[in-house]
């Protein structure tokens, strides 16, 4: 990944993270504000409920007091206080009292606890209500929740007990109450998005039908079961959110407030439901806006960061390009310096470095050139001295022979001219070798079978492997078949292989084994030529491919230089490994394809085109 891409990504991620953080913060604070507002509304509704509760209780108490103080109640109290009073006279009076005073429930209880009359459950008349007589005077007792037994079940009521004390020690008790039902809920003024429910906890288990609300179905009511059961176990205020559907906007947060009875038993649960729709929609709006802002910011950031990163990375890229050019050999590469920041300083340093490198290279080239000339002069002097010295001796012998007789002179003359001719031939050979090396042709790539090329090269030297009077050299070929063809110049390849084999033969004057191996390595074709000679020293190895360097007495030092030249022309690599006393191995890795125009398949075998190179051409 490029530096520009990284920079671009960093900028974009930074923008995205920033927008996300801002959106999260806004959402968080919005939610917190909403929760606070919801809590305030709930608190207000609960307060309203309590106020309504108290107000209803006072109304009921007022009506119950009116009943208790009514004339007929006093007459009833007096009559019932008599011995053998006919209680049946008043069986239906509670119904009239309830209708007259607008109460849902009215009951008259005698001083002994016997129910005299009941508006809501006349069939219970005659039964005892001992809890009523447990309190002597109820007149100051506020309203309380009461479990009301009815013919068709039980209900929850807000009830008040009042006492008629007309007859001392024989009080008549009046229980008045209102059913706590949907009408009670309807009297509560609810803010938008809120609703109130009452669960009448009159059964030991959760009963969906006991949940009173303006609009709720059984399936919804069932969802309150865990909440109710929790309060049944531990009657304290609980807040819980119910997800009605998968859409969070349909969720509602319910504050459950226990409603205890006179003896602190849980008789009801008041639920204040607050819709989360507003909050969810607001949050969604914020997130949408955040997404839009993020998208816009990312787009703008993309453009800006692209421009900025381009500005920032351009000098770096120029620097990188310059470095690549330096690596490619253009030591005099210069890059433009923009500004005086770190990148500008780096560019200046780079220019300074290349300038220094160029100067050092120049000096090195000069030095190497001088050294090369010296080496060349030394080699030339050495090569030329060898034939020149016999020639000098021959000429001197010929001059001395002038004093001899004609026959002897003639004999010496012939012998001397022959020697001179031979040495001149040697001189000519030496000059030809140098000429050949200077005239290495440009490669012409065709598809070449390397194994075949190797076999051809080895075949040339077969006479020498078993030459009479010389130690035997055993060639061993380990050629991988099939081996991919490579793009190569067959002549140059043949020449290189020839020099390598010749070099190996020279390395084994006492005989040995010549090993040739081919293989496919990482998409390249590897050729390995190994001998079992005495090996090379590391210093020899490092100088092995230097032109005119040789370790042999008769070598010109051009054989391996030619090999390296061929290898270089084929974009291949060559390496040498040598163990002193055990031999040397050369490895060449040829790419299968050459850059540029595609090589054409070779139509003829290598040996048909190439003429067997002379040993001179494969000179060491």
């Amino acid at each position, binding site marked *: 990944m490029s530096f520009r891409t990284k920079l671009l990504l960093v900028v974009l991620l930074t923008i995205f993270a920033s927008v996300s953080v801002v959106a999260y913060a806004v959402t968080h604070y919005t939610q917190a504000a909403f929760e606070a507002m919801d809590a305030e509304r709930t608190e207000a509704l609960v307060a309203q409920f309590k106020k309504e509760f108290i107000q209803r209780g006072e109304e009921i108490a007022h009506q119950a007091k009116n009943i208790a103080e009514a004339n007929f109640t006093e007459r009833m109290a007096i009559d019932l206080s008599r011995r053998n009073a006919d209680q*049946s*006279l008043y069986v239906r009076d509670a119904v009239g009292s309830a209708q007259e005073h607008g109460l849902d429930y009215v009951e008259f209880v005698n001083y002994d606890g016997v129910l005299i009359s009941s508006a809501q459950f006349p*069939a219970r*008349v005659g039964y005892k209500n001992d809890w009523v007589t447990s309190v002597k005077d109820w007149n100051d007792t506020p309203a309380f929740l009461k479990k009301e037994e009815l*013919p068709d079940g039980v209900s929850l009521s807000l009830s008040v007990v009042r006492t008629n004390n007309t007859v001392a020690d024989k009080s008549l008790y009046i229980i008045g109450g209102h059913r706590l039902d949907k009408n009670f809920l309807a009297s509560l003024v609810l803010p938008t998005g809120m609703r109130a429910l009452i669960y009448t906890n009159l059964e030991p288990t959760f009963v969906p039908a006991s949940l009173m609300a303006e609009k709720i179905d059984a399936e919804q009511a069932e969802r309150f079961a865990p909440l109710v059961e929790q309060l049944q176990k531990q009657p304290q205020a609980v807040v819980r959110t119910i997800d009605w559907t998968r859409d969070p906007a349909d969720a509602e947060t319910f504050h459950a407030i226990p409603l205890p009875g006179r003896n602190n038993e849980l008789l009801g649960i008041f639920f204040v439901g607050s819709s989360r729709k507003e909050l969810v929609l607001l949050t969604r709006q914020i997130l949408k806006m955040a997404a839009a802002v993020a998208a816009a910011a990312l787009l703008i950031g993309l453009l800006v960061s692209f421009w900025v990163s381009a500005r920032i990375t351009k000098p770096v890229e120029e620097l990188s390009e310059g470095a690549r050019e330096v690596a490619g050999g253009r030591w005099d590469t210069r890059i433009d310096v923009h500004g005086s920041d770190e990148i500008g300083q780096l560019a200046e340093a780079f220019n300074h470095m290349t300038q220094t490198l160029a100067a050092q290279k120049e000096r090195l080239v000069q030095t190497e050139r001088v050294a090369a000339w010296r080496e060349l002069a030394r080699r030339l002097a050495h090569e030329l001295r060898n034939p020149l010295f016999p020639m000098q001796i021959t000429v001197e012998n010929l001059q001395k022979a002038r004093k001899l007789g004609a026959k002897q002179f003639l004999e010496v003359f012939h012998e001397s001219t022959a020697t001179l001719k031979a040495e001149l031939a040697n001189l000519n050979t030496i000059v030809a070798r140098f000429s050949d090396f200077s005239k290495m042709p440009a490669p012409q790539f065709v598809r070449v079978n390397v194994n075949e090329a190797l076999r051809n090269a080895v075949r040339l030297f077969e006479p020498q492997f078993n030459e009479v009077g010389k130690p035997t050299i055993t060639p061993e070929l380990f050629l991988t078949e099939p081996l991919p063809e490579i793009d190569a110049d067959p002549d140059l390849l043949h020449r290189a292989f020839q020099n390598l084999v010749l070099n190996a033969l020279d390395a084994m004057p006492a005989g040995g084994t010549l090993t040739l191996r081919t293989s496919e390595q990482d998409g390249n074709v590897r050729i390995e030529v190994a001998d079992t000679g005495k090996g090379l020293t590391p210093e020899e190895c490092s100088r092995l491919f230097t032109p005119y360097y040789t370790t042999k007495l008769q070598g010109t030092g051009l054989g391996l230089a030619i090999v390296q030249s061929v290898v270089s022309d084929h974009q291949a690599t060559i390496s040498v490994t040598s163990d002193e006393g055990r031999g040397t191995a050369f490895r060449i890795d040829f790419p299968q394809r050459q850059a540029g125009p595609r090589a054409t398949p070779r139509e003829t075998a290598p040996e048909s085109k190439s003429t067997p190179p002379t040993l001179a051409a494969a000179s060491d």
Partner: protein
Amino acid sequence: MSPWYVATKRLARTVLFCTTLASALECAERQRYGGTLQVELHAETVSLDPREWKLGSAEFAINEKLGALVFDRLVALDNYGRFQPQLATEWSHDTAFKRWQFTLRANVKFSDGTALADADVLAALQPLLPDGQEISASGNNVVIQSAAAMPDLLEELASGRFFVYHLEPDGTLTGTGPFFVSGTAMGSHGSSNSATALGDSNLAVSTPEGNRTTHLRFRANEETWSGRPFLDAVEVTLGVPPLRQLLDLQLGKADLVELSPELVRRARQDNQRVWSSAPVTFYGLRFDDAQPVAAAAKLWEAMSLSLDRQTMANVLLQKQAEPASALLPQWLSGYAFLFTMETNIDRAREIRATLPPNMAAGTDPLRLRVDLPGDLAKLLGERVAVNARQAAILVQVVNRAVPHGAATATATSSDPASSLHLFSWHYSSLSPRVELESMVSALNIGDSLAAAGSSTDPEQLYAREKKLLEERRVLPLVVLPEYIGLSQNVRDWMPAPWGQWHLAEVWLDLPEPGSAQPGKSKATATPVAQLLTTSPGAKP
């Protein structure tokens, strides 16, 4: 002042007082003709076809009362229980009580002028007689015979639905009674906006809507064999709620109303005339067959011991009812006092404890079906549930009250979802045997009549009833009299104790025409009467 003067003065005062008193008494007791008796009934449906009446139902009593206006029986019972001739002037039977012969009254005409014939008697009574009893005519005689003894045939014929009528070719019924149906009218209470005049008595009318009433008008039959009734007409308004009836009675809009038990005390407190019959309506619980026999018997016993009938009758029903311990009332059977129903909650709890825990428990309570209309049945059902709860028997009351006439108390179909059924039974026969067998048959609570025999011996009847109760299918609760509220104008109101009205004897003490009070018009001046009298089909 001389003693003679004083004696003479005292004598003169005494003579004057006696003269005044005699004059006043003569004036008070003098029967008057004319006027329309305004009757209000709670029933929304009545039928004047005896063939359609269902034994034991509350509607039966109303139908019978109205039927008695139009039809006559062969014989009747007076208020002292003596048989009186009606359409039959003489009757005799063989020694085995298997053959009865009735001599028909001569010169009896139906209200349409048709003479009474023996064929009419045969056609009317044959469908009503029980299986095995055959009726035949022989000259002016009618013979009823059966293979089994019929010792109580007279009681049977003197009550219930054994009216004689004339079946017209178009299916209408005409009677020989003191009144005939002159028409019906439908409209809001107190006024009418439409009318249909009918001259026949196979009438089945019902109130179409809850807030509308139906008026039935019966006009005096001038040609009846028993002599013209004092009243010109009887106008019956159907579908009037009980409280409205009482108010109308108080306001003088009605002369005769039904009083529900809860209003009796109020009516008496308001100094209204209240007449009550002997207990004629029985309330009880019928057990279904869903429970295992052994468990059902124990459940019956526990339920019976838990029921506080005294409180039901004396407190809840404000002493307007009597606790019932037998199927037949004392006045009908004569042996009801031999049955007792104990209340013992502790014992009931002990028995309950021996029952399976899931029986009559929270998850599977006994379902008590109450399908009788009115608050009384509902109240009794709820009290049964409250009593049973004391014995740890959970009873769930299922109120399925239906309007009057839409269902009868004698329904024997058992609701598969209910275990108990609160039913009522109106005694309609003066024969305890017939009544008991009718009850057994209608409620399906015992053996059939054939198996039980036809003896009228009280001992055998007692044994029969005792056996029925020991079979533990029925629990008696209370028996209620019939309560009638009467205006002060109604005179000679002398019904039978068992509830038969004798409106032919009733007359109205109407004010003199010149002193007629506004709003107290009793004659044909009511809107309905005016409408009826002008209706094309109305009889004169």
